[in-house]
């Protein structure tokens, strides 16, 4: 069943508006998606109807908050097919989720951490900085199983990989990678920021130990993300951000730590964000991620067929291997200039620069790329606008 894109678009207030007399063509979804009214209403509901504390207040409003948070956690458990709700830990974003694992996992001198060469800074810097503890960070080629196997030694404690690259949309064969890592006795963490909004990420089928993702890329509010941790894996973590909610009892000299997920959710939480995140997961589940990815592929194919040969494409030419992302350079033009021109000319909003993947661009002696990233509410007509303006830029200015 295909997507009812027109119906979906009605759920997004920003798409009903015009800027400078022109409709918004939002192709910056890999950075942050738009939000449907269902999510916005869910956020407002908290602030309007029960803006109270969760997990500690016994009054009616407090209970409503607990119910809302529990419901959201269940929605996300179902969305990722986690075994237990306790395995879903709310964070402020995926960056925080990865940092929790990097700092809470008891890594010590001589331990090795592996990542790919296409990591976002959020899945690179936390591991890099562990060198102060004597932990070695090494890089393997993206989606190269042989290269991974070559690096897998007994000292490798954890492998943290991006599922789908935010630069070019290519994905790793996660199942194969995870199996190899587990065979080595190491833990595997999946950065699912760019995959979870577009395709099914089944944490049990993949058998990941940890998984991180952000709400703002999958129709949810900004300032909310999650860390999935398999129960066994979570038990290996030592909490390093502690305080309210993370203990059940304390004296002047000791405390009784809570169990996950609360152990890793210190202090008052972003309740509105959590509930909005849950609503976003429900929305995507109802829409069907298979429908979403098929729709995005159709749009990406249209763009690739029209302008794929006129620009320097980042990643493989086959759009099936790039999913929702069309990342490119126009010869002779700076990436930011192209992005600004598209915006000024027709409100086509794309991302430009290094997309927080400076390491990859530096290694390839490139300054960055222009990235058009698609989502469920984008249309063929919007692609036509993008194609037309990009063709003009290529023809006239490059």
């Amino acid at each position, binding site marked *: 069943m295909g997507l009812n894109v027109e119906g979906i678009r009605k759920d997004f207030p920003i798409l009903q508006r015009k800027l400078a007399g022109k409709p918004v063509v939002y192709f910056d979804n890999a950075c942050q998606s738009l939000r449907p009214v269902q999510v916005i209403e869910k956020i407002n509901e908290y602030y309007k109807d029960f803006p109270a504390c969760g997990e500690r207040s016994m009054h009616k409003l407090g209970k409503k908050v607990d119910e809302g948070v529990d419901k959201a956690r269940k929605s996300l458990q179902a969305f990722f097919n986690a075994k237990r709700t306790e395995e879903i830990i709310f964070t402020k974003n995926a960056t925080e989720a990865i940092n929790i694992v990097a700092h809470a996992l008891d890594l010590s001198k001589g331990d090795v951490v592996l990542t790919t060469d296409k990591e976002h800074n959020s899945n690179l810097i936390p591991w890099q900085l562990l060198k102060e503890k004597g932990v070695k960070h090494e890089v393997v080629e993206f989606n190269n199983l042989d290269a991974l196997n070559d690096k897998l030694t007994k000292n490798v404690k954890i492998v943290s990989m991006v599922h789908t690259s935010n630069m070019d949309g290519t994905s790793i064969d996660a199942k194969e990678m995870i199996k190899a890592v587990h065979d080595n006795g190491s833990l595997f963490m999946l950065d699912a920021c760019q995959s979870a909004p577009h395709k099914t990420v089944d944490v049990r089928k993949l058998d990941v130990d940890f998984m991180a993702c952000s709400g703002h890329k999958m129709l949810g509010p900004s300032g909310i993300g999650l860390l999935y941790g398999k129960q066994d894996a979570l038990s290996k973590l030592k909490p390093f951000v502690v305080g309210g909610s993370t203990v059940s009892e304390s004296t002047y000299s000791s405390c009784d730590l809570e169990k996950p997920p609360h152990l890793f959710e210190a202090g008052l939480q972003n309740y509105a964000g959590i509930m909005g995140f849950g609503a976003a997961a429900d929305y995507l589940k109802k829409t069907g991620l298979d429908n979403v990815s098929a729709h995005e592929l159709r749009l990406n194919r249209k763009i690739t067929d029209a302008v794929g040969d006129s620009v320097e494409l980042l990643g493989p030419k086959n759009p099936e291997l790039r999913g929702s992302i069309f990342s490119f350079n126009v010869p002779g033009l*700076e990436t*930011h*200039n192209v992005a*600004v*021109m598209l915006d*000024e*000319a027709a409100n086509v909003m794309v991302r430009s620069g290094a997309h927080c993947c400076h390491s990859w661009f530096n290694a390839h002696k490139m300054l960055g790329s222009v990235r058009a990233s698609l989502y469920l509410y984008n249309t063929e007509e919007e692609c036509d606008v993008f194609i037309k*303006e990009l063709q*003009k830029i290529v023809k006239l200015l490059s």
Partner: protein
Amino acid sequence: MICIIALAVFSILAVFSASYRPLAAEAFDCVFRKATFRKCRTNLDQRLKSQITGKLLTKSPGLARFVYKRFEILSWIFVILFIASLAYTVYGGYNYALYGNCYGPEDNGGFCIYNALEGEQFSKIHAELEGETVLPTADDDPAMGPDDAKVEMIEFGCYMCPFSREAQEVVKQVLEKYGDRIKFVYRDFPIEQSGHSDLHMASNCANEQGKFWEIHDLLFTEQEVCAQTTGEEREKQVQDIAEQAGLDMAEFNACMKSEKYEDEIDKDFQDGLKAGVYGTPTFFINGRTIIGPKPLRAFEKIIDEELEKAENGS
């Protein structure tokens, strides 16, 4: 280079709106870095370039291409123009403060660009003249309208001055509108360097025969033809105009030959100088000045105020 203009524009806008202050700061940073031979850190110039090109892309792709490819040169041109116009503005302001006009002391045919509505004072152009400035009177010069009119408008004009010619249309509109409520006097102020007091002489000779306003209008109408002729040809041209005005030519020629109005014309000119006149046309409306060929509304404002004053007895 565009950052220099951006700095000026955003700095002014920042005075009125806080939202422009970060942009002004960005532009300042960019200018400062470029002045110290470093690359603009904020890429403001690139952003402006792309924004301008992007806007042009939808309207005129060819122009967008031109601007994008030559942005640096265009930026330089705009910066030079900007600095030049800034320098001229300062120079104009200096002249205005010192001489009461924006062109400076050497200007003999120009007019202050400031609207004379606010210029209710004598020009300081002839400040070097000894003695106080003296308001001009109607003297015995040709006049229209009743002597007891509430408003007296004296024009110092030159028949060879294109600005005086331009002002005639407005003068007619003024006279038509105010009728008997205004007395209009025309006084001679031939611009010396041009050597054309013969035209003023002709108008005074015509006045003898009661045909002043006829020749006055014709001299302005034929101004361009007069300007192109000299010597005998010019003399012939003046005679043709006199004939058209219906003058007795023998009487007219005798008058011209006698040059008997030379003193009269010189007196007008000297009276003009004493009043601070430095160019033509200059109007004195009950002593208030209008310099240059100003629009009707400039005259209306002063005349209406003077009429109101007269009605209120003040």
